[in-house]
Structures are given as C-alpha cells and as structure tokens.
C-alpha cells in the first residue's frame, strides 16, 4: 500500500476488510479479503461481489459513431442492437492488440469499457483517429463499477431494482434503471463463467449498493471477492487477461481471438497486417492442464524434447478442478489439443497436456 495508488470509492471497505491490498493498474485493490478459495467457491456456488471501478469508460457519440467503432475495433458492431454488448479488440496499424474491450450500444451512442492500464493513452489514441460526425469523452473517473457474479446473482439483483430482468440475456444491458434509489446501468456480463451482472453507477451510489448486497445476502453465502478469485475464475474459463496473455506485440488470431475479428465487415485499423500475420505465425496461444500436482506460473518455459517451445502467460491452481491450469504461447507444431508438453517449474520438468477452453464447464452463465 503506498500513497500513489488511486483509490476507488470502496477503498475504505477494502482497507478495513483486507490485509492484502496491492496496486493493480495503479489502483489499490484487494488480492483477497479472507481467502481466495472461499471467494472463488462463493462465486461458483452462491455469488461474489467485486469492485471493478478501475475499469475505464469511454463514450462515443455523434451521427458517425458506429462508423468510428467499426474503424477502431476488430469485431463487427453492426451485428448488435441497442441494449446489447459485444466483446472486441482495438488494434494498432501493425494489427496488434492495444486492448480488449466491451462495446455497449447505448440508445444514444456507444460506451467502450477498457482495461485500467493506460486509459489516457488509449483515449488519446482513439482521439487521434476521430473524423467528422464523432466525438468521444473519457468518462472513466465519473463511474464506479461493481460486479455480482454467481448462480444467486439474478435473484439478488431482481430484489434491488425496479425493472424486470428475467428476460435479460447474456451480453445485454438496461440503461437508466432504478436501484436502491439510484440510477444505474445494469449489464449481464462478467469475467467468471457464472450467471452474473455488472453495475455501472455514480460514485455516490456504489457504497449503498455494495453494502446492501453484503449485509442482506451474506446469509446466502455471498462474499466480497478480490483480484485473486477474479483471476482463478477467469482462468478456469480460459478468458484472457490483457498484460498477461495478450499485449501490444500480439495480433488477435495468434491469441485465439479470430472469433471477434471480422475480416468481412470492411476495412478497419490493422486489418491488412492481421491478415498477413495470421498466415505467417510460428506460435499460438494454447490452454494446458498439469498432469502432475504442480502449479504453472507466468514466465515458466514450456519444454518438448529438451527444447524450449514456448512460455506460460497465465497459470494457477484451479480451485474448482483442483489441478494446475494455464495459458501459454507454444510453437504451432506443439499446439494441438492432446499434445503432451512439459512445464519447467523451478528446474523440474512437470508434464502437462494441451486442452480446449474452458477448463471449467459447469458454470451457470446461460441460466
């Protein structure tokens, strides 16, 4: 904990309930409150509440807003309607990933939800690509954001809002709804593989909502959850983390993000380079699980026949499956499902096998 860290509105809660606060993209956030494992299992079995206020929000508006989004993101935004969201990436002229984002099609414009690191830089980059009929605004410091994730989340959210949400589908959202006397945007999205919701609200609302949920639903097993559980949960689903699994040197296809890269939608920034690189790539992102009791960590080498053929970008114990799991970039020759590899864990070779994501498939995402 140092004084340079930015604090979210919920910092006092974190500070009184966690002894493990770190700087995450410059924000003081808890790795865990009491236990990563308990917080992880709470999300899989009941619900967990996360402070994700570090995420950034950029609003795009104007008559040509959609055309602008088509130009600066890789996915085809014409496929979503107002009230729907879409996972996408922003790539640079080299076809490499500046960020992975969620695009919300608002009733009037778009909201881009970006990762916390270097928001200002990304905003300035977007600004440099503006053309007539579009304006953008960095609203990151105007919003707090929390996520309630887990099988019990829908019943809890339903009890604190005015609208009916039984028909709200995955990657859909509702703007301007009442929640405990405050105006929020409610989105059925998340990073855990469970049925879950994200709430965007003004700073003066977030403590009320956060405390209300914990005080009233703690008896149902709901826990506040930190960065540690967020990481084990997303890894069990094979969701990528910018800075670990993807970065400015990697194009979408290499990272397995071809499904959010629409080469058919027309031209966009990076398209030409992405096509060139797609067919000329020596290594790929793979998912692997350990065949021995051992835990892969970022940076560890992947070995086949005494040769380094790749490296780990994310790794953890999977609390749900009780084995080591990870993400790595591996030479194409060794990246097929079922390929046996070794992970060099502190000078010992431990065997692993390439698998398909998700590692964990019993989530309630589509309930």
């Amino acid at each position, binding site marked *: 904990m140092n004084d340079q860290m930015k604090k979210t509105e919920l910092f006092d809660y974190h500070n009184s309930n966690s002894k493990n606060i770190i700087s995450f993209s410059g924000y003081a956030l808890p790795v865990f409150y009491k236990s*990563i494992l308990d917080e992880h299992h709470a999300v899989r079995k009941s619900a967990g509440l996360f402070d994700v206020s570090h995420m950034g929000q950029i609003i795009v508006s104007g008559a040509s807003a959609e055309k602008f989004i088509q130009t600066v993101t890789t996915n085809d935004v014409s496929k979503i309607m107002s009230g729907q969201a879409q996972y996408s990436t922003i790539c640079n002229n080299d076809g490499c990933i500046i960020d992975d984002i969620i695009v919300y099609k608002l009733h009037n414009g778009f909201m881009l939800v970006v990762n916390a690191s270097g928001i200002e830089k990304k905003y300035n980059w977007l600004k440099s690509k503006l053309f007539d009929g579009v304006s953008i605004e960095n609203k990151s410091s105007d919003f707090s954001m929390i996520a309630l994730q887990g099988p019990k989340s829908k019943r809890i959210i339903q009890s604190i809002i005015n609208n009916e949400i039984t028909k709200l589908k995955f990657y859909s959202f509702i703007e301007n709804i009442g929640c405990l006397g405050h105006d929020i945007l409610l989105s059925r999205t998340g990073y855990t593989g469970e049925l879950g919701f994200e709430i965007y609200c003004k700073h003066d609302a977030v403590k009320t909502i956060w405390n209300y949920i914990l005080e009233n639903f703690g008896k149902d097993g709901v826990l506040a959850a930190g960065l540690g559980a967020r*990481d084990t949960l997303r890894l069990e689903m094979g969701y990528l983390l910018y800075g670990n699994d993807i970065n400015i040197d990697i194009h979408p296809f290499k990272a397995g993000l071809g499904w959010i890269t629409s080469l058919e939608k027309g031209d966009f920034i990076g398209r030409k380079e992405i096509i060139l690189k797609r067919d000329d790539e020596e290594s790929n992102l793979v998912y692997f699980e350990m065949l021995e009791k051992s*835990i892969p960590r970022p940076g560890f080498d992947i070995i086949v026949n005494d040769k380094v053929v790749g490296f780990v970008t994310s790794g953890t114990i999977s609390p749900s499956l009780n084995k080591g799991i990870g993400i790595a970039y591996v030479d194409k020759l060794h990246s097929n499902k079922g390929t046996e590899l070794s992970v060099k864990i502190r000078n010992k070779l431990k065997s692993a096998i390439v698998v398909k994501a998700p590692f964990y498939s019993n989530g309630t995402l589509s309930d």
Partner: protein
Amino acid sequence: MKVPEELSYTKEHEWIRAADNEATIGITDFAQSQLGDIIFLELPEIGDKVVAGESFGEIEAVKTVSELYSPVNGVVTSVNENLEDSPDNINLDSYGTGWILKVKFEDSLESYDLLDNKAYQSLIG
C-alpha cells in the same frame, strides 16, 4: 498477528522452536496471512541436509510461490506429512498443526542470526 514469545524467528518469516538439539520449523502467522490459502508444499526428505539462510523448499499459495529458508544447519528428522493433504493447517494454526520440518541442528541456537519475538514483531510492524 500472533508472535509467540518462546520462539525464535528469521527475517524471512520462519519460526523455530528448539528442544535440546532438535528443532521444529514453520512459517509465522504473518507469513501465512500474507500468502493466503496455502495449497501445496515442496519439502525435503528425512536425512536431507539443510543450511542456515538457504532454501529448503517451496510453499505455494493460490497466487504466489515462496521459498522456505532454514534458520539453522542440520539434518531433517521429520516432515509434517499431514500437510500433503491438508496444507491449510498452516493457515489455521501456523505454530501448531501447521509445523513443517523437524531438524537435528548443529551448534547452539544462539550462534545463529535469529530474531527474538520483539525484534520480529517490530520487523512486521
């Protein structure tokens, strides 16, 4: 944070309890609280040598892995086998059921560079 008076400590957050020339070694309450849920240990075997200030094994928590450092020179006489199935004993009771190793150590405990409870308490603040 518990820092029992009768134990000696290392700067790397191990504790040591000596009886004659056999000592029990574990990690402190502070260390377990920083690591969080402990899920896995890699430990030496009975008969292996340990050297003061050098790593004798590793302790893995969900998010981090950390080296274990020996407070003394000696030979391993016992390893806490319960930790294989229940490594959380270290989280629950780091000075009791969460003990890690027993070693037959050389020289007197006073001859090693160890901290008493007050010095360790001020180290962790």
